[in-house]
Each structure stands twice: as C-alpha cells, then as structure tokens.
C-alpha cells in the first residue's frame, strides 16, 4: 500500500511538472509570435532600405540584403529641392541611384527639421504649461478646481476631426497658415490636456503632507513644485515627454490642413506624398521611413532609464 501511495505521489509530481512545462512552452511560443508580429515590419523596413529596387521585389523576399547598398540613403542626403527630374534621370539603369526618386525627395530633410522643431517645442511648452497647472489642480484648493479638471478632460473626448475646421479658422485669423506656429499651437491644444491629466493623477498620489513639509521648511509653492514634486515625478514626466513627442512627430491630419509648402511641411506629409508620386521607389520610401523612426527611438532611449518605479517609496510611514 505504501508503495502505491508513493507511486501516486511521483505520478502527481510528474503531472505537475508536465503542466508547468506545457504552460511555459505556451507562454514562450506566444511571446515569440508576438515579437515577430511587432518586429517583422520594422525589420523589413530596415532591411529593404539597404536593398535595390530590383532586390526588394524578389520572391521570396530577402530578409538579409544580398547586395547591400547605401544608394537610397545617398539619394536622400544628396537630393536637393532644385534637382531636375527628367525623363532621362527617371529611366536610368539603377533604380536606387535616383531613377525613381520622387520629385519631392529634396523636401525630406527640411521636413525632418520641421518635425524636430515642432516636436521639441511642443514637448517643452507642454511641460511649462502642464506641470504648474497639474500642481495647482492637485494640491491647491480653489474655487472651480473640480470644474477645471472636468473641463480639461472633456476637451480630450472631442475627436480631432471635429476640431479641424474651427482650428483652421482660428489659425487663418492669426495669419499662421503654412507656418510651424500653426502646428505648435494646435498640437498643444491636443496634448496639454493629456499632460495635465497624467500629472494631476501623479501629483494627487503624492501625500499632501510632503507639500506641507516643504512649505514649512521654507519653500514657496513654486519651490515646493520644483524641489520636491518634480524630482519625484520623473517617471511621469518621461511618459509625458515621450507621449507629446510622438504625438507631434506622427501627427498627420492637422499638418495636412495647415501646411502647404516645404516651409512648414512635416515628415508625415512629405513621406505620404512620396507614395502619390507617379512612379514609386519602395526602397527609397523605406529608407525615408528608417530615418523617420530614428529621432523617436533616440528620444526613447535617452529617457527610458528614468522610467523607474518606486521612486516615492519611503515618503510616508510605509
């Protein structure tokens, strides 16, 4: 009898181990699938930007370029806005050398500059406006506080498409059409409520007594914000920076409405225009796409290490 019990026990253990194994395998496989799903398009984008137009259309596709070429990037950095696009250049032998380069290729780098300027300004202004606003809403009791928070949030429920026309009228009235100012202004209107929302949430989570302690220790409200609240809110600030940067970087609809020339066109507009050129070079477009993801990635890498949790541990009794 003892032996059968023992055997049962071993059996149970084996079953348990097996179920653990299957669970781990399932999780592992799912993770792989998810990773492929996320990474495959990016991988293809990067890989194809180093391929010629001829190689890019080969079947099956070459995930690793057989004849890697930098021609697409040379075309981008060599292109000038004044470059003539003639029948001769378009029918050249090597597609990557400029034969199929879109006529607006020269706009790419200036547009990238525009995008960078707009995104940076939007991030900075967001912080300048959003941080004090959020502190006030979270830690100062004043008449109409709740109404203010509510109103700010409600503005985010309105879809951008509904705002396009009113925005357009305002921007035209201000004489800002086809200028970077129009984009900075409207992107702020779209992102500041989100910034305030995130930061109010965070500041409200910080104990009131921390604010009181700082003020009794000799801080004005502003100093309390800068010296105590901001250092503690780095993770939230990073989230805000990333969100506002990416929102500005990717925004298409408003940019399409308010910009008309290279003076103010941003990257998404110029990139989209490539596809509507009468001949399309996929390898060139993909190279442009690769350039477009570099700044967001750089920003993310710079700020990622500040996204640390547990920064506020120990403020209160704990």
């Amino acid at each position, binding site marked *: 009898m003892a032996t059968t019990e023992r055997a049962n026990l071993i059996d149970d253990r084996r079953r348990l181990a097996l179920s653990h194994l299957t669970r781990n395998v399932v999780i592992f496989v799912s993770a792989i699938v998810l990773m492929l799903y996320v990474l495959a398009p990016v991988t293809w984008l990067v890989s194809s930007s180093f391929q010629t137009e001829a190689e890019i259309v080969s079947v099956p596709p070459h995930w690793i370029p057989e004849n890697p070429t930098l021609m697409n990037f040379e075309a981008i950095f060599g292109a000038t806005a004044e470059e003539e696009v003639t029948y001769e250049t378009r029918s050249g032998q090597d597609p990557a050398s400029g034969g199929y380069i879109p006529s607006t290729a020269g706009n790419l780098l200036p547009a990238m500059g525009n995008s960078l300027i707009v995104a940076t300004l939007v991030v900075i202004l967001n912080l300048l406006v959003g941080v004090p606003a959020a502190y006030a809403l979270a830690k100062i009791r004043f008449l109409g506080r709740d109404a203010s928070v509510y109103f700010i949030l409600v503005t985010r429920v309105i879809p951008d498409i509904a705002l396009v026309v009113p925005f357009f009228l305002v921007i035209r009235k201000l004489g800002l059409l086809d200028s970077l100012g129009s984009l900075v202004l409207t992107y702020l209107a779209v992102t500041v409520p989100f910034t305030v929302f995130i930061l109010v949430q965070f500041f409200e989570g910080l104990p009131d007594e921390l604010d*009181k*302690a700082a003020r009794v220790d000799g801080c004005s409200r502003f100093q309390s914000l800068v010296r105590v609240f901001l*250092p503690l809110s780095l993770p939230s600030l990073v989230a805000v920076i990333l969100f506002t940067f990416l929102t500005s970087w990717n925004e298409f609809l408003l940019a399409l409405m308010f910009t008309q020339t290279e003076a103010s066109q941003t990257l998404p507009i110029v990139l989209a225009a490539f596809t509507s050129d009468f001949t399309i070079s996929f390898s060139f477009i993909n190279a442009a796409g690769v350039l477009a993801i570099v700044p967001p990635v750089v920003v993310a890498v710079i700020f990622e290490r500040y996204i640390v949790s547990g920064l506020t541990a120990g403020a209160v009794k704990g």
Partner: protein
Amino acid sequence: MARIRFEHVEKKYSNGFHAVKDLNLDIQDKEFIVLLGPSGCGKSTTLNMIAGLEDISDGALRFDDEIVNFAPPHRRDVAMVFQSYALYPHKSVFDNIGFGLKMRKVPRDEIERRVREAAGKLEIDHLLDRRPSQLSGGQRQRVALGRAMVREPAAFLMDEPLSNLDAALRISMRAEIKELHRAMQTTFVYVTHDQAEALTLADRIVVMNDGVVQQIGTPDDIYERPKNTFVASFLGNPPINYIDGQIESTDGSTARFRRGDLAFDLPASIAAKLGSSHGREVRLGIRAEDVDETAAGAAGSVIRGKVNSILPVGSDQFLGFDLAGQELFFRVGKDLAHNLGDDVALSVDLNRLHLFDKDSGETLLW
C-alpha cells in the same frame, strides 16, 4: 521666542464645513501646549493655521504682537513634524534634515554643523547617507524630528508624531520629546488624540470637540476638575462612570445625591457649592479608580452590585459592575479575587466625586 494667540479664530473649509469655532487661546512663550480631542475635532486644522498651511476664515492669529493671518508658511518661523513624517523620498537623511536650512540660505558649513549636531542628539548620525526608504519607522520619526530641530524655530508644531510607532517606542519617544522641549526652550504645540500622551507632555492641555474648545488647563486641572462631561469622559481609563439622579438638600451645608435606593451623603465641600438646589437633576461622575474594595468606607458611600465582567490589565483589573441594571466599570487591585456573578460592595471616595448638570453637562463644582 514666540507667544501665539488666537483671537476669535474661525475656520470654514471651502465646502462649508465649520471646522474650528471661536477659538481663543493664548500660548505662552516656551510653553508646551497639547491639543487633545477625538479624531476630526479640528486639532490638525488649528495646527495648520499656526503653520500657515490653512487660511484663517475669521479672527486674528498673532505671533507675539504681530498679526500673521496672511503670512505664508515660509515666512513664519515655525517647524513641523507630521504624523506620516513626510520625509523627502529622493533626498538623503542629511539633505532631509538640512533642507529647511538650505532654503533659508544658511551657509553650508553651518548646515553641516547643525545637521550633525541634531543627528548626534537623535542617535541617527550613522544614517545620514541613507534614503528614507531604507529606514525603520522609528528612525524616520527621528529624522522628522531632526528636520524640525535644526531649524531652531520660534515654535515647534507636531501633529500626532508618535501615532505610527509601536507602543514601547511611543513611550520612550514621549520622554525624548519632553527632553527636547526642555533643551530647545521654545514653544511647542503638540496635537494628539491620546490622553496619556497629553497628560505626560503638556504644560497645558486644550481639549477640543467638534471644533469647539471644551477646556484649557494643566493636566491636573483637566483630569481632576473637568468642566463638563465631555472632558470628564475623554480622559480616564476605563472612562468615568455616570449615575443620573437628584440632589436632596435640606439647607446650604449638607446635601445628598439620590437615585432610587442609592444615596450618597455629599461632603461639605461639595454641598457648599451646590447651595440650595433641592430636587435638581444631576449627573454624578465616579472615576474608575475612585473606589475602595474593602467597603469599610464612611456610611453613605457604599454601592452594592454584581460582578458582570473581569478584565485583567496586568497591574490592575477592570471590574464590570452591575448597579441596579446600569453597567459601571471600576479599576481595582488585581489581588482582589472575584468571580462572575459575585455580589460585591465598593466604597466610593466621596471627596473625588464629580457633579454635572444633567441637561447641559456642565460641572456644578468648579
């Protein structure tokens, strides 16, 4: 170096809640004042008004003779210790303690000197490089004290600073806070809902309820001569017992308390204060410890009843006592052996009785 005066101070919160009503309080320089009362009675609100963390709705708050109603916290020379300690999580212990000095532009070497001195006194000098998250509750508490100490403020405010500590630490910290007051020679305003803390620490206690001051006095005043039933009930463990009844008095010099069969001959000192109040409805108060089990006391002081419950509390025991259907609690010596249901006779110390008007709850004695 601060005398703090409240003159008809009112506090109404923005939601209309009237948290402090007509507060008049004159805190002397170097005095240790304890604000005592149940949770929600307005103690913290009062303290925050001294610190400048809450606006004053009406009345005047003076530091010495100057009205400070509108001075922001950083312009008042006060330091504060919070219940949650409120240490800055991103700063080292050293920087936590020195922050107030830094904000007040004290020279660096002076900060260094004062922080080390305070840390030495509090025995946390080995912790100066740590973050608050790496400290125990008791250590955080000391850092919070140190942060206030180094400021050498005109007034030292503490909002339930010990309530997050365990019982043993709480008692030893009481002694340290008392010593701190002696050493610092400044005004202390201390908030607590713990009567024992208040009785140990205070020069004077301010008992509050529902935003209204009930009584201001020395611990002895408050405990021995409570002005009303609220104060009498709030202090004492177990709480004071009440028996409702009437005064029978023949002339101005003798009086008797009666409820049904129960009667006490009140001592002359009490009778004199009652005057001719024959038939007056009163509430008699007997503190739990003011009974004698030997029952050999003066005639007219004995109560008889049944033992309802026995709660040993180490040094003593609490006796639940059924007096003609009313439950009373007394504190008696632990060597007294009773069983549940025993009939016992206790003799009441008549000189220590309390008498209150039955309707208003105000004392009739002082």
